[in-house]
């Protein structure tokens, strides 16, 4: 293989694509060729590197220099300075928001240095479209060991000892699930991968598939060997075109290298898999619904038992795990159960990937050992709350989860501790909310989502979530009445105890957890007809507080309806007859003077 003086690892994840990494790539190639450096320096488009807020990002190896927010117009200067003259360009370095200090090396940036990577170990360092690069970082060694040196029982016992639990949300022990399926008689069994990531605010699985698709394939091959399956499916959302493309490339490369198909690595074991594109239904993340969907039916869940391990896809024994779970498997087999179980907490082993989003400075993908506190994730890695606002709560687990208020911010993330404070680990969505977030509106948003995605099969979920949404709508529109809160609680209990599947059984959680910690906000909406966070337009007056107004005129400039009057050094005023209540002024006002 040809040696290069340097590799430019340019992030090619969805986030960086959107901010222009492809233009940066072509500018780099042009400039390197212009200076005749293209034989010495190689541009590599990697998968998602995780620090999405700073995109497009590029890591220069072997120096470890990290460039961020690159534009195609920066490239001529960058190539000339750094690669011709050997002077890295300081103004494109990362700047720590708190200290305003520039940090040239990726390893020193707190966002990266506080993480521990297992699932994401190849992110940003390999070209996900080249199997050789995955293999070069110990890829498929775990599969080789499992197929050539271990019996299926040994694989399962390693998985059980490792303590790995499903990363899709419910946290069921992976080894146990495999053991159930392996005990079933029959020649035809299936291994499925759930890549129908649907929680709003979650993008862990997408990033893993984009950055390291072979890790998922390797996990599936090992699972297939453990239970004796010959065929597998990856059920992936059609909304993830880049992930789908990279999976297709990975599958065909794995076939060419004899890692999928017949007689894998000369072991005599046959396994092949294909991609199944989901057609857009959140409920298909539920295992029985997902299987119905692959069978070509409406993706509606069915009661369990029988569990999929006994009767799954086409009534055959089936194992279904999520993307992140599979991405752990190869390394567990390679490095052993003891290595994996040494990381994390007593009942929550290994690491967890979180998609850190919302009102936080360092939006991106974060992998930390189980047991890391929420504070470490949000403040040390996440760089704290954006726009210097105040932390209010963090939402974990999406529409099935709950929010954690400030008083519990030192809670460690592991399955038990998170459940104790009324949220769930979930699949890894972590949405940080500042003091401008209205918790009633947030609960309404999630209920709207659940109600829309309810498949309609069972009455509690179909009707109950709609009733809850109506009540929440009423409250946020200022028509709440005494008794509404109690009615919400009653309905929640009823739906949780009687819905058919996980969607309904967990659907009321966002309401219950906001009621638990922010009941006063519900009461303010109902009794005083006020929205303390100023997010519910129906409860706002759209008036300017003359004492708080700093006379800056930003609201005047931003108002799309030209309803605001303002002159230099005078306070602004809003004409209510032309105001469209669009909230632009309220979001824009630096002094919080509009109410």
């Amino acid at each position: 293989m040809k040696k290069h003086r340097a590799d430019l690892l340019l992030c090619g994840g969805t986030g960086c694509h959107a901010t222009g990494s492809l233009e940066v790539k072509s500018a780099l190639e042009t400039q390197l060729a212009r200076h005749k450096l293209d034989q010495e320096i190689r541009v590599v488009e990697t998968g998602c590197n995780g620090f999405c807020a700073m995109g497009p990002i590029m890591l220069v190896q072997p120096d470890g220099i990290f460039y961020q927010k690159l534009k195609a117009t920066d490239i001529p200067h960058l190539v000339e300075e750094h690669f011709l003259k050997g002077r890295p360009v300081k103004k494109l370095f990362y700047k720590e928001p708190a200290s305003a200090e520039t940090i040239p090396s990726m390893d020193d940036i707190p966002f990266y240095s506080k993480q521990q990577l297992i699932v994401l170990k190849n992110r940003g360092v390999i070209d996900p479209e080249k199997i050789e690069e995955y293999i070069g970082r110990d890829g498929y060694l775990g599969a080789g060991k499992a197929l050539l040196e271990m019996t299926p029982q040994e694989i399962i016992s390693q998985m059980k000892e490792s303590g790995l639990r499903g990363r899709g949300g419910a946290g069921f022990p992976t080894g146990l699930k495999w053991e159930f399926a392996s005990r079933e008689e029959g020649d035809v069994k299936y291994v499925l991968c759930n890549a129908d990531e649907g929680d709003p605010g979650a993008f862990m699985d997408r990033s893993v598939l984009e950055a390291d698709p072979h890790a998922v394939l390797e996990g599936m091959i090992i699972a297939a060997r453990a239970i004796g399956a010959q065929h597998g499916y990856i059920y992936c959302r059609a909304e993830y075109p880049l992930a789908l493309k990279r999976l297709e490339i990975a599958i065909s490369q794995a076939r060419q290298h004899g890692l999928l198909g017949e007689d894998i690595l000369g072991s005599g074991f046959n396994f092949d898999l294909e991609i199944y594109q989901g057609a857009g239904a959140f409920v298909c993340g539920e295992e029985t619904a997902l299987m119905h969907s692959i069978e070509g039916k409406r993706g509606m869940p069915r009661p369990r038992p029988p569990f999929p391990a006994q009767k799954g896809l086409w009534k055959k024994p089936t194992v279904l795990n999520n993307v992140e779970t599979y991405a752990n498997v190869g390394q567990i087999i390679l490095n052993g159960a003891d290595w994996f179980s040494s990381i994390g907490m007593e009942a929550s082993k290994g690491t967890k990937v979180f998609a850190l989003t919302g009102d936080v400075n360092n939006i991106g993908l974060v992998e930390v050992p189980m047991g890391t506190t929420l504070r470490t994730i949000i403040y040390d890695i996440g760089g704290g709350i954006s726009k210097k606002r105040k932390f209010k709560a963090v939402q974990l687990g999406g529409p099935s989860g709950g929010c954690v208020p400030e008083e519990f911010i030192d809670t460690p993330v592991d399955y038990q501790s998170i459940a104790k404070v009324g949220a769930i680990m979930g699949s890894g969505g972590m949405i940080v909310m500042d003091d401008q977030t209205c918790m009633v509106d947030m609960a309404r948003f999630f209920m709207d989502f659940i109600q829309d995605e309810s498949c309609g099969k069972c009455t509690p979920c179909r009707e109950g979530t709609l009733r809850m949404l109506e009540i929440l709508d009423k409250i946020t529109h200022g028509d709440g009445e005494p008794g509404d809160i109690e009615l919400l609680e009653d309905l929640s209990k009823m739906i949780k105890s009687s819905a058919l599947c996980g969607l309904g059984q967990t659907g009321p959680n966002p309401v219950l957890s906001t009621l638990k910690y922010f009941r006063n906000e519900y009461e303010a909406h109902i009794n005083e007809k006020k929205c303390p966070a100023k997010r519910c337009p129906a409860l706002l007056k759209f008036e300017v507080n003359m004492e708080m107004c700093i006379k800056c005129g930003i609201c005047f400039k931003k108002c799309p309806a030209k309803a605001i009057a303002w002159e230099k050094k005078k306070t602004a005023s809003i004409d209510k007859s032309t105001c469209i209540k669009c909230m632009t002024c309220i979001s824009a006002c630096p002094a919080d003077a509009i109410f």
Partner: protein
Amino acid sequence: MPNYANLVMLNPDLTPQVMARVDEIINRSKDKPGCLIPVLEECQEVVGYMPVELQKYIGDGLDIATSIIYGVVTFYSFFSMLPRGRHTIKICMGTACYVKGIAEVVSRIQSEYKIEVGRTTTDRRFTLEAVRCLGACGLAPVIVIDEDTHGGVTADRILNILEKYE
């Protein structure tokens, strides 16, 4: 030989050329278990949407009752029974985009182009769709027009962006 002439009378979008491609998709896949959803996805790609006449035609080809196909088409948000515009505007309704003010962006589009979410403008220029989280929360609020992702969209900027899509 299927009666293409009859179909084009029922629905002018189902031309003989289009239907020849639909036939090719059906014939290639019909013996595969669970092929219905991939077939529908591919056919919608060809025709642009999934009118009832097409559903019946696919049902006949795959030997599946039209009622089952209708059930599947109406269940998944990927399928549309209404014609599509030349450009599709997808608005991300994920939490991060919501927090960052996507609702203001949507209402600006609605008032400018006189279009409801889920519908197409009368000149078939734009189809406006609300989609579940696109997973690009780092760029919130996000809209996707055709294949282009636009991040950090504000109500002020959106009309300028849309002008470029004729």
